[in-house]
């Protein structure tokens, strides 16, 4: 009998094409997602060496970071010249090397981590890479998915493999049930709050427990998306009926007998009883509150009912970092988080730009208006999410509330396109990073769930979303 294996062990073993004596492996890559920012130098490298893309049919390119999200982009011209050059370079490279490609004009275009699953490119048991740290998102399907640098992008393009050493196994279990108003975003932030941004360094995390089982695929993607914010190379969730149901019928998912064959294998993708984890973290679902970040690292997270912490309450280098963070964020120790006034609300990103996220925000906004003077925008994660939200009437709710209803892209999550915060502007954002300057030079970011973002848009300050939920929802 073979030793019990974790889910990570199983996927890893299924992709080793060559192993050196020291354990360094060539890992086969099933799906390679490509966007415009981290790929031009890689394609250029291929061109200079006279190399081809080894498996263009397994390579999927989509522009997302730089693209404008305003409605005038249908004119096809990107005003920022550098952005245009990058998007044009992707267009040229995708065509020259013959990879799958969703240009800006295609309704299926969107954030690469939303397009991949939506189109059925991402399937259980696969290895998925992209020159983007939020590739961890695809782990929600039980796919081993992680970000790579541009040199590795070139390596995968040329060889369809990656030189890798195996990470350690970490289990994060969320038991029980979530309380009303608590969402997958709160769960993933609470985990980082508990483990720190370096807590997962050197590990692949498997998320499990009843709370994860009860989540939709959208929710699971939100959780895995931020595995990287906890330092982990990747996050994984064992596939189950929820996964298979989501995958079935997607354009690039297997069909008919092939689907059945795939399903048989997918059903073996779980951690065996007694398999070894190098680190285990357990949280009770009931203990998780709606949370918000106060600082400039995703680990700077607290329940919305808390106050801004005193930097002196931390240890080591974190004391200085917290002082710097409070100064940058313009906050004082002891200040109630709900007293923090918000200028801008951003709903979108690969963390929270899916249909369920828009539903959660719209639920709060129904029949309400955003605070006077508030700048609020919704940037759906893909053209198809946008179309679905329009069909479900969500777009109307957002527009009537006073939100801008944008086209798909990464937008203000990292502000590489014109959607940026100005100096000192304070934003409640459903994105994934609150780093200094992330959403614009000297911009101030508070990471929240879509429902919490909607609540802040209505009240004008960080708000416990449960105060805006109806009696029945709160029961």
């Amino acid at each position, binding site marked *: 009998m073979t030793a019990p294996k974790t889910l990570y062990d199983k996927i890893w073993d299924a992709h080793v*094409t*060559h192993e*050196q004596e*020291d354990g*360094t492996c*060539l890992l*086969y890559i*099933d799906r390679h997602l490509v966007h415009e*920012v981290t790929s031009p*130098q890689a394609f*250029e490298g291929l061109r200079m*060496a006279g190399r081809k893309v080894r498996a263009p049919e397994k390579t999927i390119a989509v522009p997302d*970071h730089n693209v404008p999200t305003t409605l005038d982009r249908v004119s096809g011209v990107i005003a*920022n010249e550098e*952005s245009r*050059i*990058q998007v044009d*370079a992707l267009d040229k490279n995708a065509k020259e090397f013959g990879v799958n490609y969703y240009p800006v004009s295609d309704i299926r275009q969107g954030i690469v981590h939303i397009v991949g699953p939506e189109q059925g490119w991402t*399937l259980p*048991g696969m290895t998925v890479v992209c*020159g983007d*740290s939020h590739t961890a998102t695809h782990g929600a399907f039980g796919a081993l998915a992680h*970000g*790579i*640098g*541009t*040199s*590795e992008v070139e*390596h995968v393009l*040329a*060889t*369809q*493999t990656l*030189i890798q050493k195996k*990470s350690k196994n970490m289990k994060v279990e969320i038991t029980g049930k979530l309380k009303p108003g608590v969402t997958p975003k709160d769960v993933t932030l609470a985990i980082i709050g508990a483990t720190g*941004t*370096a807590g997962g*360094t*050197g590990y692949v995390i498997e998320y499990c427990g009843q709370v994860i089982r009860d989540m939709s695929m959208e929710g699971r993607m939100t959780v895995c998306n931020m595995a*990287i914010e906890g*330092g982990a*190379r990747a996050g994984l969730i064992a596939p189950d009926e929820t996964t298979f149901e989501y995958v079935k019928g997607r354009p690039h998912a297997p069909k008919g007998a*092939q*689907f059945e*064959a*795939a399903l048989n294998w997918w059903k073996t993708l779980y951690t065996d009883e007694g398999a070894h984890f190098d680190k285990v973290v357990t949280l009770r679902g009931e203990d998780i509150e709606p949370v918000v970040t106060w600082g400039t*690292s995703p*680990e700077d997270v607290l329940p919305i009912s808390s106050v801004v912490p005193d930097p002196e309450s931390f240890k*080591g*280098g*974190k004391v*200085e*970092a917290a002082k710097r963070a409070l100064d940058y964020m313009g906050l004082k120790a002891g200040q109630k988080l709900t007293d923090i006034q918000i200028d801008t609300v951003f709903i979108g990103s690969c963390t929270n730009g899916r249909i369920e996220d828009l539903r959660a925000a719209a639920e709060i906004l129904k029949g309400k208006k955003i605070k006077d003077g508030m700048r609020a925008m919704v940037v759906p994660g893909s053209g198809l999410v946008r179309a679905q939200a329009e069909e479900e009437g969500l777009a109307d709710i957002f527009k009537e509330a006073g939100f801008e209803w944008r086209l798909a892209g990464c937008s203000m999550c990292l502000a*590489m396109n014109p959607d940026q915060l100005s*100096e000192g502007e304070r934003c409640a954002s459903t994105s994934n*990073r609150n*780093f*200094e*300057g992330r959403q614009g*030079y000297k911009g101030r970011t508070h990471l929240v769930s879509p429902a919490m973002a909607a609540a802040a848009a209505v009240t004008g300050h960080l708000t416990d979303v449960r105060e805006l939920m109806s009696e029945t929802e709160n029961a």
Partner: protein
Amino acid sequence: MEKFEKLTGIAAPMPLVNIDTDMIIPKVFLKTIKRSGLGVNLFDEMRYDRQGNEIPDFVLNKPQYRDTQILVAGDNFGCGSSREHAPWAIADFGIKCVISTSFADIFYNNCFKNGILPIVLPQEAVDVLMKDAEKGSNARMTVDLENQTVTTSDGEEFHFEVDAFKKHCLLEGLDDIGLTMAHVKDIDAYEARMAQERPWV
């Protein structure tokens, strides 16, 4: 890729923890389609004011640290994005080695692809090296990859661990794609096997 063997140079102290990739190279500079020329924008938002003037307090702007080749940094250096622009900017500035108690995974890997040696040492060792770095340009630190040691200007020596294969590649300046191409038959065989076993992929 340039070989990394032995390096003696100025080390700059950056004790801040969680120095992220947005700090190392802000996204406005990611719009390039080249690898070179990013050194001038390394740590841009910490290094320059809005008008583009140098902020004199920032360590790399101080006269004694202008030729820094080694960075001694706080915990979890390089966290955040996968952008290789971060190590490109570091290398382009002339920094060839970063020392910290820990590094973010993707950044750590990216360093080796660009001839930069990231060194992980325990807190006590990093504290000593940080102090040594604070001495400025009169104090030269030595990093010896072959023997896996860092030596302070006072001669205090610390041994560090590094993956044997990564060390070999860095010492020899080897190109990963070239190395992998030597195993192309294994890749062919794997693909042929998968066409049978998992044809839906």
